[in-house]
């Protein structure tokens, strides 16, 4: 076996001689670094930006366009806005966990941090998001009675029915998210097992 292996070592060292760093390699790397900075900013803060914009739009709607007056409606608006704020806080926490996955750690640490991150994402998709969407939906329907005072009934009914379609789309989105994170957890756990097994 050692004979085979020393031949392999020679072939390996011989093969490396043809690989050299060049100014073009470095320039390409610098270009990638610049592109990477933009991408990772969008990756980390894209969802938060979308959720925050939604929060501002809904808040402005209730504050400037249709300030609700009944207690039930105010609870409804509170549930809608509160749910969004909670979701934003979870996203911020998620960024913190994602940033812990460092490639400079040893492989076992990196794998463990990845598992913690994917499990957290799974919890967001599987538990937190459905609760927030349920609260958002309850809030939405709590506002309906007050809207009936100012709008035609058929308009409000149409409004409520269209929300059901959105709920179906959200359901499938959540299911897709949970499956994706479950796959990530499964694969990372397998990798960890592979790392730790001795034979």
């Amino acid at each position, binding site marked *: 076996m050692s004979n085979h292996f020393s031949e392999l070592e020679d072939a390996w060292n011989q*093969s490396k001689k043809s690989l050299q760093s060049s100014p073009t390699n470095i320039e390409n790397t610098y270009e990638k670094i610049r592109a990477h900075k933009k991408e990772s900013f969008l990756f980390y803060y894209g969802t938060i930006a979308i959720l925050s914009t939604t929060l501002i739009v809904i808040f402005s709607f209730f504050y400037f366009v249709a300030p609700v007056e009944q207690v039930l409606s105010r609870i409804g608006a509170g549930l809608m806005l509160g749910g969004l704020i909670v979701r934003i806080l979870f996203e911020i926490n998620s960024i913190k966990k994602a940033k812990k996955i460092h490639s400079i750690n040893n492989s076992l640490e990196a794998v463990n941090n990845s598992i913690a991150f994917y499990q957290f994402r799974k919890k967001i998709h599987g538990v937190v998001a459905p609760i927030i969407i349920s609260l958002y939906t309850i809030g939405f329907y709590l506002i309906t009675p007050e809207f009936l005072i100012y709008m035609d009934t058929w308009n409000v009914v149409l409004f409520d029915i269209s929300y059901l379609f959105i709920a179906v789309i959200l359901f499938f989105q959540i299911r897709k998210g949970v499956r994706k994170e479950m796959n990530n957890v499964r694969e990372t756990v397998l990798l960890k097992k592979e790392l730790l097994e001795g034979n």
Partner: protein
Amino acid sequence: MNKNTTLQFESIHKQYFPMVLQMCLGFTQGDYDKASDLSQEVFIKVWKHLDTFKGLSSYKTWIYRITVNTCLQLIRKEKKNNTMSIDSVHHQLVEESKNDVTEASNSLYKAIGQLNELDRLVIMMVLEGQHYDDISEVLGIEATNVRVKIHRIKKRLKKILDHE
């Protein structure tokens, strides 16, 4: 980053690029384009974390860690998009004939490529002359475990080479 760090990065790039590219080539079974992208990703991480390098290990071990983790992350990404279009396969075949990887090196990478992904990375560190303790530091597992792993991988590699 200041000028000193930039100079330091360029010197690291010059010194370790062949080592990283060769590991990536072995990992990707000699696919030069994929290996180039992968090694660029490794150096992006080197650039990003260079300020935090404390010197607790050598640059070489530190770069190994980044390379191994980047390759392992690629497995997860690939499993997510494990379908390859006919166009991309054709493109790959055309490009393969263009690149600098010689036939002998290619068969070496192909032989290593028959091992599973983690074993490929471990055996490449052995081929690079890394000590068991350094490999254990890179992977975060016991040195005895590394020893057992390497013995098993060498046996498997011998079987592969005997069949060729």
